[in-house]
């Protein structure tokens, strides 16, 4: 059945890097291509006739084809069968309806990343410990030494160090920012969370600019 798409030149919406669309759009495209193909054969072929063939209401079909309404599970099953789709193909379209679009997926990934960042700051005492060590005499720029001093693994030290760098809480030479010298652990945590929030907000603004 997909061979008929060749009659109408349309890019596959799922493969368009410039404008990612909801995967469920593919079913809508499929209906439009089918309708256009039938009209090429018979210019008088109407939307009502197409709806009758699909055994659905023409007003609903029109909204689905224009992207103003999502097809329900029942409609995808029914219309897919009438269009000659295999059960496997129908299953793919049903699954596509439930996959978040690229923009939503990226927004969710960002939210997960920033939440994880905030949780790491809240739950990881090693951040404060590293900062304390950075200010102390005898500090050694050696992650194995820092790990031994803080009682956490080297990987955890490296993750905490890069987080402190990302948040601007230590500088590129691993020196604690001067303004942090007088902070208590609770005040440091509050400041670190504020930096996470600030970075997340900047990221959100950037995301909105690029529309995901």
């Amino acid at each position, binding site marked *: 059945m997909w061979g008929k798409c060749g009659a109408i030149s349309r890019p596959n919406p799922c493969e368009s890097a410039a404008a990612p669309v909801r995967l469920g759009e593919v079913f809508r495209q499929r209906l439009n291509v089918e309708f256009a193909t039938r009209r090429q054969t018979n210019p008088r072929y109407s939307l009502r006739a197409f709806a009758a063939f699909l055994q659905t209401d023409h007003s609903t079909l029109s909204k689905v084809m224009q992207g103003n309404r999502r097809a329900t599970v029942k409609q995808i099953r029914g219309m897919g069968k009438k269009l000659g789709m295999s059960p496997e193909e129908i299953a793919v379209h049903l699954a596509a309806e439930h996959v978040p679009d690229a923009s939503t997926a990226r927004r969710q990934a960002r939210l997960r*990343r920033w939440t994880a960042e905030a*949780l790491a700051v809240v739950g990881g005492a090693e951040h404060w410990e590293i900062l304390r060590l950075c200010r102390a005499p005898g500090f050694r720029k050696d*992650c194995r030494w820092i790990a031994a001093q803080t009682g956490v693994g080297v990987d*955890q030290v*490296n993750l905490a160090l890069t987080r402190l*760098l990302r948040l601007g809480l230590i500088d*590129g*030479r*691993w020196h604690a920012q001067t303004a942090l010298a007088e902070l208590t652990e609770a005040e440091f945590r509050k400041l670190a969370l504020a930096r996470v929030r600030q970075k997340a907000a900047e990221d959100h603004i950037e995301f909105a600019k690029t529309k995901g």
Partner: protein
Amino acid sequence: MGNPVVQFQIVSAAPEETAGFYASLFGWTVDANNPMGYRQIDTGSKAGIQGGIWPAPPHAPSFVQLFIGVADVKSSVAQAVELGAKVIIPPTVLPEGEEMAVLHDPQGMSFAVWQPA
């Protein structure tokens, strides 16, 4: 001098398992005996580039980064930002004197610029 790709880095949610997997598969040796505790990969060949393994932050997927050799990290970062890149980790001097920074290119792909000691 140019700006060659000097290293690949696997950012892994399970670095130790990743090291074990590639060591078993390709016979790579992984040595973390350095001040960063960095898992340095030796592929055992002079062809291609060498690599390393770095822990991924929690809830981040595993991915691969390329390190691009530059003459001056700070000016490369400034130039990258002008071209639309975003700084993830600002220029940082590592324990053995190398300097590096991590950025996202305008498409959101992560890469690092690296300057030898």
